[in-house]
């Protein structure tokens, strides 16, 4: 059991309204890696993460988390949804949102204890949001909202983290803060899958890359997969992106 990979996906196909979005995805993610998921718009990056969580019905295939079906091991998975997926006018404070990360560990009918509050405070401190603990969440900037989401994921104390575009719409300071945090989590032996849309930075941020365009185009250590050929296969003939890719490859060379 201890040797079971954090995330194993076999022949996963997901369809929306009978149109397949993901086709026969096979994937075994080794532990302790920071994995970036990149691909063009509509490649199924978010879909892959949601399907891995069991949030979407799958047409075929299966997902195992630490050797068990994902439903059984949900507690070991931390999910960071896209920032836009929730209503930020919701009447809760930053602290309330981070405490939600603890709910899974509490049973039914139990309220968060002092220890939960302490953990939540520590997590907020890690993302440098502690001074904002009592703020109402609608008074936060995009970067701050993202950090609150990360703090909440930290509070879940999971072993595998699935993050959907944590860098989307954040300022440079937040981006580097998030990266530092991801590295810290990796150092603690956690496994992280991060949907990312910026190719040039993807190469520097991640240990491994999953190039996705409905199918898995390539998956492996960043230095092996990040080359012109696989990127072209992933992004197809989109000229604007191709020039960006060319630039990225040249910088590498």
């Amino acid at each position, binding site marked *: 059991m201890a040797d079971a990979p954090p995330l194993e996906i076999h022949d996963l196909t997901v369809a929306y309204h009978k149109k397949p979005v993901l086709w026969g995805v096979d994937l075994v993610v080794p532990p302790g890696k920071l994995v970036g998921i990149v691909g063009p718009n509509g490649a199924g990056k978010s879909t892959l993460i*949601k399907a891995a*969580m*069991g*949030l979407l019905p799958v047409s075929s295939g299966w997902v195992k988390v630490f050797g068990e079906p994902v439903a059984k091991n*949900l*507690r070991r*998975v*931390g*999910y960071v*949804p896209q920032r836009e*997926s*929730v*209503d930020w006018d*919701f*009447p*809760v*404070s930053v602290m*309330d*949102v981070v405490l*939600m*990360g603890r*709910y*899974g560990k*509490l049973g*039914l*009918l139990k*309220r*968060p204890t002092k220890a939960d509050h302490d953990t939540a405070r520590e997590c907020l401190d890690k993302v440098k949001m502690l001074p904002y603990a009592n703020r*109402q969440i*609608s*008074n936060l*900037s*995009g*970067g*701050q909202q993202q950090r609150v989401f990360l703090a*909440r994921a930290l509070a*879940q104390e999971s072993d595998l983290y699935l993050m959907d575009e944590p860098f*989307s*719409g*954040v*300022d*440079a*300071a*937040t981006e580097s803060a998030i990266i530092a945090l991801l590295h810290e989590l990796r150092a603690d032996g956690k496994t992280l899958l991060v949907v990312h849309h910026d190719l040039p930075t993807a190469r520097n941020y991640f240990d491994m890359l999953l190039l996705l365009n409905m199918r898995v185009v390539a998956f492996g250590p960043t230095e092996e997969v990040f080359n012109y050929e696989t990127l072209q296969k992933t992004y197809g003939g989109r000229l604007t992106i191709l020039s960006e890719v060319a630039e990225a490859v040249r910088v590498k060379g």
Partner: protein
Amino acid sequence: MGFLVATACGLVGNYLILRRMALVGDAISHSILPGIAVAFLLSGSRGSLPMFIGALVAGAVTTVLIEVIHKKSRVKQDAAIGIAFTSLFAVGVILISLFASKVDLDQECVLYGEIAFIPLESSVELAGLKLGPPSVVRMAVVTLVVALLVGLFYKELLVSSFDPALSFSLGINSTFVHYALMAMLSVVVVSAFEAVGAILVIAMLILPGATATLLSNRFPVMLGLTVLHAALSAVLGLHLGVWLNCSLAAAMVVAATFLFVLAWIFSPEEGLLSRVFKDRSGAVEPRCESAGSSE
């Protein structure tokens, strides 16, 4: 009684507003009519148990129907709600006028209710204590149960309303929470509408929560304000109704709306007055501190 109705409705209504489902409350309050009619026809009595069951079933059918229309066709959710509740309501009206017209299940009462007649009912006595008219006792029990459930399942309701995906990943089934909330709504509506009628129930579902939303951005405070709003509108409504000698239920809603408008104008943060004031002093909303949050 008015207070009980407003409290129970308001507490449930808070969640409806936060989940952007205020219209679902509207829909269910109408579509329980066929449920009640069928329950009445099957059981032949106007007892509260068959009514509750009928309302629960109708509430569930409405919820499922809205989901099915919304998900399995290209019709959007608001239109799906419109289809589901009007058709069910129409079925209810037909059923009543066909089979129950001779009995005292008149549509006037279903639509408008009459809170003033309640004291005329004979009191329920329990262990020698006079507890009050049966509908008040029933409403009190329902209100108590709702308050208890909201208290006990506070965090489940909160997280599944705020972020269904997270709640799933925490092992809290938001679909189940959704249906549980709808069931609660149906029970509240059926026990309330006898007093205030199917239409005014909607006001009681939405107004307390909406007023609380304007006044606070802390959820527990909002729930407290909801109860306060319920109490105030019940008392004010009673006085207004007696003073004008009109329908007490309507007076209650007018009072509740009046409170809402007050909150709208005078709310410390979002109120119209404080906005005017802020504009004059030239204050800028400090919404984004660290810049660069553009997409």
